[in-house]
């Protein structure tokens, strides 16, 4: 098919989709309306279980099984990326050169790393209380290490980050989530049921299994992102050559 014909097909498809979307949108309950049957029930259920952040309660309690599915997608994508970006036999690595950076940047990198790490851990730890949680905090923690690369250079990052450790962390996070679910079965309830005491409302130890699952996700996401970026970094900066 010629480029012109393809564009015509695309235009027809987009216009038809646009028409359908507009027709659908006009019949959806209007924006900002008061009717939220699921939301109201989810809030009630979260408060019954002493979880202040109802979004975390939905993720790690009411729909914990669903989140296991999401986590597995994450795990599978990381696995796929690692396999795709591994170094093949006919490729060689070159040692990346240190870069000279201004002292201001170097100092910023060294000072901002622990602060960012702390912010990430804070976001994970308060997941069941204030906005945040394992998904968000995990990304922040992983980004923290890479400040060394962007503010200083790649060798500095490599000295600090042991990728093998994070590969294990990724698997441990996933396993911890699955095993916490089994805990529900052992207690005679359903898989991933919230069987721990719900604790005192609005304290760190509230929400039963929510903080545990949250921490497991935090470990997995942080490790997963470090492993992903490690592969991309080594492909872009170290690995050369390949099959012809």
């Amino acid at each position, binding site marked *: 098919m010629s480029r012109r014909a393809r564009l015509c097909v695309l235009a027809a498809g987009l216009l038809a989709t646009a028409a359908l979307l507009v027709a659908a949108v006009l019949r959806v309950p209007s924006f900002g309306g*008061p009717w939220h049957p699921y939301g109201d029930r989810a809030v009630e259920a979260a408060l019954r279980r002493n979880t202040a952040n109802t979004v975390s309660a939905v993720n790690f309690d009411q729909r914990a099984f669903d989140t296991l599915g999401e986590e597995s997608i994450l795990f599978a994508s990381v696995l796929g*990326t690692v396999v795709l970006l591994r170094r093949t036999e006919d490729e060689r690595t070159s040692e990346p050169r240190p870069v000279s950076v201004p002292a201001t940047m170097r100092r910023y990198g060294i000072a901002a790393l622990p602060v960012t790490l702390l912010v990430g851990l804070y976001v994970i730890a308060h997941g069941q209380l*204030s906005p945040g949680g394992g998904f968000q905090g995990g990304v922040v923690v992983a980004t923290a290490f890479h400040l060394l690369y962007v503010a200083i250079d790649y060798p500095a990052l490599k000295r600090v980050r042991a990728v093998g450790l994070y590969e294990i962390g990724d698997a441990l996070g996933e396993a911890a989530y699955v095993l916490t679910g089994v805990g529900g079965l052992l207690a005679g309830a359903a898989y991933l049921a919230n069987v721990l005491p719900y604790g005192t409302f609005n304290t760190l130890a509230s929400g039963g299994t929510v903080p545990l699952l949250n921490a497991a996700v935090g470990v997995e996401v942080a490790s997963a992102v470090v492993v992903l970026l490690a592969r991309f970094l080594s492909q872009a900066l170290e690995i050369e050559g390949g099959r012809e």
Partner: protein
Amino acid sequence: MTVLPYLVAAWIFLVGVYGLATSRDLVHAVGCLAVAQSSTYVLLLSVGYRHGGTAPVFSDVKPGVTVVDPVVQALALTDVVVGATVTALLLALVVQTAKRFGTTDPDELFALRG
């Protein structure tokens, strides 16, 4: 105002698909896919919004105030992070394509295959 957020979501989706289909570079195409994906978050959160409502997080407000829908927020929040790792997988595929064929232009790739 009653439908504007939904129309914006629809626009983002359509413009993302347009970019995806007309892209001349696979890395750009992955970026366009990320754009199209973000339309789902806009749609979900617009559906969950309630006038005068606040976030369903009770660390600093008393339970009982009007809140927006937490279910759609939970759906969107996991997908934002999981979506990023899927983007990484797609980018890894692009890297493999570049290694094998030396190009990331879909038209050139098509010519190579044929």
